C-alpha cells in the first residue's frame, strides 16, 4: 500500500514537471517598437531593421518580409533573434517607402502578424498611405480557437469526472450505469483529442486566413512552445485512454490515477490561462476554477445520462442529495475563484472592451444556470429530467463563452 502511494506521488510530480512551463505571459506578444520607426523618413538607407517585442519570440516563416517601393519582395539576410529582438540585415538601393511585414509566435503561444513602413529619402505615393498594423487576430482564427477551447473544456469535464460522480453520488453502481459512465468518459477523450487540431488551425488562421492549411506555417507553429503544449494535451488524453483501459479490467488503483491526472491537467491548463500575473495564487485560482467546473459539468452530464435508467429510478432522491452537495461546493468554489480572478484583472480591464463584455455575459448565464437548478428542484419528479437537460445546455453555453474569453486578448 505504501509503495503504491509513493509511486503515485512520484508519478504525479513527474507529470507536473513534464506539463509545467518555464514562464508564461498573459497577453499576445506585443510589438514594442521598430528601428526604423513606423512612418519615419530616413536620409540614408539603413543596413539593418530591428524589431522589439514585449516577450521572447520565434519567427514563423517567412518571418520578416520587406517590400520595396515598387512592391517587390526584397532578399534579406537571415534574421537574428536575441530574445525579444529581431535583427534583419539587408541592403536597400531605392528611395521611397518600404513596407515590413512580420509574423512571430510568442512564449504564451499566440502567433501574431503585423506590419509597418518607413521611407528612405522620400515617401512614395502609393504605399505611404498604409497604416501600420500591430498584431490583430482574424475572425476565423478566433472562431476556431474558441471552438477548440470549448471542446477541450467539455472533454475535460466528461473525461475525468463521471467517475467521481459514480463514486460519490451513486449508492450502487449497476452494470448499465457503469457502461454509460465509461461511454461518457470515452466521448470526453474523443473531444479532448479533436480539440487539438482545431486549436492548431486556429493558430495558423489567426495569422492570416489564407495560411490556415499552409504546411510551413503549421510546421513552425508545432516547433514552438504551442506545439509542446499541444503535444502534452494530446498526451493527457491518451494517458486517460490507457488508464480507462486498465480501470475497465477491474483495477481500482487506475480510477485514482484517472482523478490524479485530472488534477494535473487542471494545473497545466491553469498555467496557460490569462490571469496568472499573480504567481502561485493566480495559478491556484485558475486550477480550482477548472476543477470545480469539471465536477459540476461532468457530474450533471452523468446525471442526465443515467437519470432515466430503470434501476436508477429508486436512487433518484439519494443522487440529488449527494450530487447536490457536491455541486453546491463546486458552485461556491466557482463563484469565489471567478470573482477573485475578475477583480485581479480589472486593474487592466475595461468593461467596455470585448473581453469585459464577454465576462459579463458569462456571469449572466451562470446566474441563469443557478436559477434553473432551483426551478428544477421544485418541479415534480417527472419533469425534472427536462430541467436538468436545460441546465446542461446552460452549462455548455458557459463553457463556450469561457472558450471565447480564453481566446480573446485581454483589455
Amino acid at each position: 500500500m505504501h509503495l503504491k502511494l509513493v509511486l503515485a506521488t512520484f508519478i504525479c510530480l513527474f507529470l507536473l514537471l513534464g506539463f509545467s512551463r518555464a514562464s508564461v505571459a498573459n497577453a499576445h506578444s506585443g510589438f514594442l517598437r521598430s528601428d526604423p520607426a513606423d512612418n519615419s523618413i530616413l536620409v540614408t538607407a539603413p543596413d539593418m531593421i530591428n524589431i522589439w517585442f514585449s516577450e521572447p519570440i520565434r519567427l514563423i516563416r517567412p518571418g520578416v518580409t520587406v517590400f520595396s517601393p515598387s512592391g517587390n519582395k526584397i532578399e534579406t539576410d537571415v534574421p537574428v533573434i536575441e530574445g525579444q529582438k529581431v535583427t534583419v540585415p539587408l541592403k536597400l538601393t531605392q528611395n521611397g517607402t518600404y513596407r515590413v511585414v512580420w509574423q512571430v509566435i510568442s512564449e504564451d503561444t499566440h502567433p501574431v502578424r503585423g506590419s509597418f513602413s518607413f521611407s528612405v529619402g522620400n515617401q512614395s505615393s502609393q504605399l505611404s498611405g498604409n497604416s501600420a498594423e500591430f498584431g490583430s487576430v482574424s475572425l476565423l482564427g478566433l472562431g476556431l480557437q474558441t471552438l477548440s477551447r470549448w471542446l477541450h473544456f467539455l472533454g475535460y469535464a466528461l473525461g475525468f469526472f463521471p467517475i467521481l460522480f459514480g463514486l460519490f453520488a451513486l449508492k450502487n453502481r449497476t452494470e448499465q450505469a457503469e457502461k454509460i459512465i465509461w461511454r461518457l468518459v470515452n466521448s470526453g477523450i474523443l473531444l479532448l483529442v479533436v480539440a487539438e487540431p482545431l486549436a492548431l488551425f486556429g493558430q495558423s488562421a489567426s495569422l492570416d486566413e489564407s495560411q490556415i492549411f499552409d504546411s510551413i506555417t503549421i510546421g513552425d507553429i508545432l516547433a514552438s512552445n504551442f506545439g509542446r503544449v499541444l503535444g502534452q494535451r494530446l498526451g493527457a488524453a491518451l494517458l486517460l485512454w490507457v488508464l480507462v483501459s486498465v480501470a475497465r479490467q477491474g483495477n481500482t488503483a487506475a480510477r485514482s490515477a484517472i482523478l490524479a491526472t485530472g488534477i494535473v491537467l487542471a494545473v497545466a491548463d491553469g498555467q496557460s490561462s490569462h490571469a496568472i500575473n499573480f504567481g502561485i495564487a493566480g495559478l491556484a485560482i485558475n486550477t480550482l476554477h477548472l476543477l470545480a467546473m469539471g465536477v459540476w459539468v461532468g457530474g450533471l452530464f452523468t446525471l442526465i445520462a443515467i437519470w432515466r435508467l430503470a434501476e436508477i429510478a429508486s436512487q433518484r432522491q439519494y443522487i440529488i442529495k449527494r450530487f447536490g452537495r457536491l455541486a453546491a461546493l463546486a458552485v461556491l468554489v466557482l463563484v469565489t475563484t471567478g470573482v477573485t480572478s475578475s477583480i485581479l484583472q480589472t486593474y487592466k480591464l475595461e468593461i467596455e472592451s470585448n473581453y469585459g463584455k464577454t465576462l459579463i455575459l458569462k456571469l449572466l448565464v451562470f446566474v441563469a444556470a443557478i436559477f434553473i437548478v432551483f426551478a428544477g428542484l421544485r418541479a415534480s419528479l417527472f419533469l425534472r429530467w427536462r430541467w436538468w437537460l436545460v441546465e446542461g445546455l446552460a452549462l455548455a453555453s458557459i463553457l463556450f463563452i469561457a472558450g471565447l474569453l480564453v481566446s480573446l486578448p485581454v483589455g
Partner: protein
Amino acid sequence: MKDRAAPPRFHYAWVIAIITFLTLLTTAGIRSTPGVLLVPLGEDFHWNRATVSLAIAINLVLFGLFGPFAAALMDRFGVRRVMLIAFGTIACALLLTTIMTEPWQLYILWGGMVGTSTGATATVLAAFVTNRWFVKQRGLVLGVMTASNATGQLVFLPLLATLITSFGWRAASWTTLTAIIILFPLVAIFMRNRPSDKGLKAYGAEPDAVEPERSVGNPFANAINGLLRGLRSRDFWLLSGSFFICGATTNGLIGTHLIPASMDHGISEVTAASLLALIGIFDIIGTTASGWLSDRVDNRVLLAWYYGLRGLSLLFLPYALGTGFLSLAVFIVFYGLDWVATVPPTVRLTADIFGKASAAVIFGWIFAAHQLGAAFASFGAGTLYTILGDYQVSFLLAGLLSLIASGLVIRIGHKSGKIPPTPKEVSQQAA
C-alpha cells in the same frame, strides 16, 4: 540406490546461459562497430556518409528480417550448428573486410553477411535458448541476456575506439575476429541443443513435463507459416505493433538522434555521447529488473508501465533539452531504465500465447517489426529535421506513439483469453 545419489551441483542450463551470454556480448560488440567505423572508412576510402550508411541500413534490415528464419533453422538443425555456421560467416566477412576496396564489397560483407549472421546470434537466440532450457527464472535469465546488449557496447566501444586511433580501422575487424575465434571452440564443446541431450529436463520443469518436438520440414516454410499464423492473430498485431513503436522510440529516435539534438541545444558531442552511454548503464539495471519482474507480475501491466513512462519522458524531453542538465539527466535515468526492459515481458507473452514450440519463430517476426520501427523513426526524424530544423515534433510524436503502445498492450490476450495467471495469482488461488 539411484535415489540416494547426490543431486548435480548445478544444472547444465546455467552453462548454456553463460555461453549464450558471451555470444550475445560479442554480437553486441560487433554491431556497435559501425559507429566508430563511419569516419575512418570514409577517410580511408573516400566514401561518403551516405554510402557507408547504406551498408548499415542493409545490415539493420537483414538483422531484423533474418531472425524468424534463424529461429526456424535452430528448430530444425539445432542451435549449436546454427551458431557455429553464423560464427564462421561473421569470421569470413570480418577477415575479408580487411582487404576490401569497393563499396559493393562493404554492402555484401557488412550488410549481407554480418547482418544475417548477427541476426541469428542476437535477441532471437536469447529467446530460443531461454524457452528451451528454463522454466523457473526464465524472465531473469532473459533479462540478463538482453542486458548483455548494452554491456557489449560498453565493453567493446572504448576498446575499439582506442585501437582504431592507434592502429587504424582494420584493428576493429581483427579484434572482433579474435573474439569470434575464442568463442568458436567454447560453443563447439559446451553448447547443446536441448536439455534431453544431457539427459536433463529444463531448469525448474515439472518432473513429468514433455519437451517440444523437434520440428521437421523446411525451415523457410516454417518461418513463413509462423508469420501467417501470427497475422491471423489479434494478439500478434498488438505485440508487433507495440514492439514497432518500441524500436521507433529507442534505437530509431533516441539512439540515432539524441546526440545531434543535444548538440543543437548547446551540449557538446562528448557530453551527449556519455549521456547515451549512461542510458546503457541504466539499461542493464532496468532490463535485469524487468526480467525478474516478468516472472512475478502480469506482463501486460509491466509493458503498459514501460511504454507509459517512456511516452511521458518523451513529452518531457523538449523541456529537458531547453532547461539544462539536471532535467536531461532525469530523462536519461527514466529512459535508460526501460530502454530494453520491454523485451523480457514481450518474449514471455509470445510464449504464453503461441506456445513454446512456435514462440521463437513468432518472436522473430515481432522483433523484425521492432527493427522496422527503428528504421522508420531513424529516417522519419531525419526527414522532419530537414523540413523543420528541429526535433521537437519528432519527440512529441514518439511520446504520443508510446502512449498508444501502452494502451495496445493492455488489450493483449483479452479476446483470445490466452494469458495464463501470473505465479502470484496461482498461489493466491491455491490459498
